[in-house]
């Protein structure tokens, strides 16, 4: 796909192949390449570079369109952010990174250890709390996650904390009882705060394929998702499925995790992401 070449079917096929290999859905890939063909015909585009740039523009448009892209604290305090997602995607580590960012900017942060199920989940979050220098609210292993969240919010109100970051257990979205448990946690936040959580972040692993769309849909059904944190973009997977998710579900991508350390978290930048797709 480098250098000048004719604008022909072979070029369009290769662009479609690039998108699919980046884990965009077939539907999104075909749709985008069809728009390219149409644009090429209508505007008589003759340069392959023009086609490539047009594709990049289309991708950035999908990703950048609409609101809700940043992580901005609301005026009400404490802000409560819920982190959800399937097993092993990077929820706990992403929370640690965001806590670090907020702490550096002078905020008072409380971590809520609401994964009361997985072996050593609370220990893991506690180590991060100590490293970052923030407080943690935890109960014993096996406790009700809703009770931990409720407690955390009460503590945040009493201590005038700026933000509560809630860690939840990984759960596969096809497990009804686990999704019901999450719905209940969401309701408890509503009751304790008098409003929805300020952010409900779905953490997605960049190595995930088409199943990420189902994950987004199913989690949207039980909690009011406000955006996505795309983790592990430091690998070789492109994470292109977020383009499909943004296009079909409208969920903004807010954050990108690029490593295992506290400073490996950035705001999601559509331009950089699209450049990396072609990288």
């Amino acid at each position, binding site marked *: 796909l480098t250098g000048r070449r004719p604008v022909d079917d072979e070029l369009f096929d290769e662009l479609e*192949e690039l998108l*699919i*290999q*980046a*884990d965009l*859905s*077939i539907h999104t890939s075909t749709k985008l390449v069809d728009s390219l063909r149409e644009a090429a015909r209508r505007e008589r585009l003759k340069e392959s570079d023009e086609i490539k740039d047009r594709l990049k523009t289309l991708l950035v448009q999908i990703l950048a369109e609409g609101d809700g892209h940043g992580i901005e604290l609301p005026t009400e305090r404490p802000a409560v952010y819920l982190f959800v997602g*399937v*097993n*092993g*995607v*990077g929820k706990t580590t992403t929370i640690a990174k965001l806590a670090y960012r907020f702490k550096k900017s002078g905020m008072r942060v409380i971590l809520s250890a609401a994964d009361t199920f*997985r*072996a*050593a989940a609370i*220990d*893991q979050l*506690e*180590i*991060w709390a100590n*490293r970052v220098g923030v407080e943690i609210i935890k109960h014993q292993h096996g406790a009700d996650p809703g009770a931990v969240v409720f407690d955390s919010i009460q503590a945040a109100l009493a201590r005038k904390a700026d933000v509560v970051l809630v860690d939840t257990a990984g759960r*596969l*979205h*096809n*497990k009804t009882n686990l999704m019901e448990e999450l719905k209940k946690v969401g309701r408890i936040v509503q009751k304790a705060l008098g409003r929805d959580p300020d952010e409900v972040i779905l953490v997605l*692993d960049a*190595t*995930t*394929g*088409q*199943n*990420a769309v*189902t994950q987004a849909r199913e989690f949207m059904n039980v909690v009011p998702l406000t955006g996505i944190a795309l983790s*592990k973009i*430091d*690998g*070789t*997977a*492109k994470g292109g*499925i977020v383009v499909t998710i943004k296009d079909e579900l409208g969920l903004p991508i807010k954050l990108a995790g690029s490593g*295992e350390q506290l400073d490996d978290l950035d705001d999601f930048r559509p331009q950089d992401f699209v450049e990396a797709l072609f990288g």
Partner: protein
Amino acid sequence: SLSDKLQNVFQKLRSRGGLTEQEVNDALREVRLVLLEADVNYKVVKDFVGRVKERAIGEDILKGLNPAQQVIKIVNEELVGLLGGEQAKLKVSDRPPTVMMVAGLHGAGKTTNVAKLALMYKKQGKRPLLVAGDVYRPAAIMQLRTLGEQIGVDVFDIGDKQDAVAVAGAAMHHARSNGNDFVLIDVAGRLHIDEEMMSELKRLRSSIDVTEVLLVVDAMTGQDAVNVAQQFNEALEIDGVIMTKMDGDARGGAALSIKAVTGKPIKLIGTSEKMDGLEPFYPDRMASRILG
């Protein structure tokens, strides 16, 4: 389903004999779409569809009575054959202990599934030892300890201030003096492009006599599965794969990609977070799942 889609392609056929090239290509296009939707790697799909086409034309089935069913039959046979044909067993060392090591990307399920392996051997009357070789991740050793306690299997660790190779070496001494016949080593998640961490794995493999290296892969892995599997295989010469989180609804096409590209078999699947959630890999069941 693929069956319905192919019936659609071929339904105009019923009143006349023989297929046009267009109809063959339409049928193959449906097969291609199903596999891509299932996360099978793009290039693997291309090769696979090519093989199906060869057989479809070669077997002259397209002039037969029910071409849709015959194409499905070929697709299924090719898929099952590619996935390994039949169940692949775990290795046992002829000079005990049998040493097994898991490896793979972050969060794939190594710690959880190496513990499940330990329980499996314990239930077989063996004396397994778990080794806490992840000296990096916060509370990784604690996680393995907790699982070990749950299943009643000893966990060996020397803390997280020593490097993984030192842990493994010490573990082997302990295993020999303790009479453990299976040593199961947990290691940290790592990227296949992280040279330093990949070299740690190589050093682990060469410093102790590892009988079986199992690449642990998440069933929801997309197109990147081939890169990961290829790199881990080149670095380590893996013996097999554990595909985890198969209790989800990901189609698991990565299984086909990995087998096609490395030739190494999927040996086990993880089917729950619980310690009894480890099952043998059945190629025919996986084929049905991939085809949706």
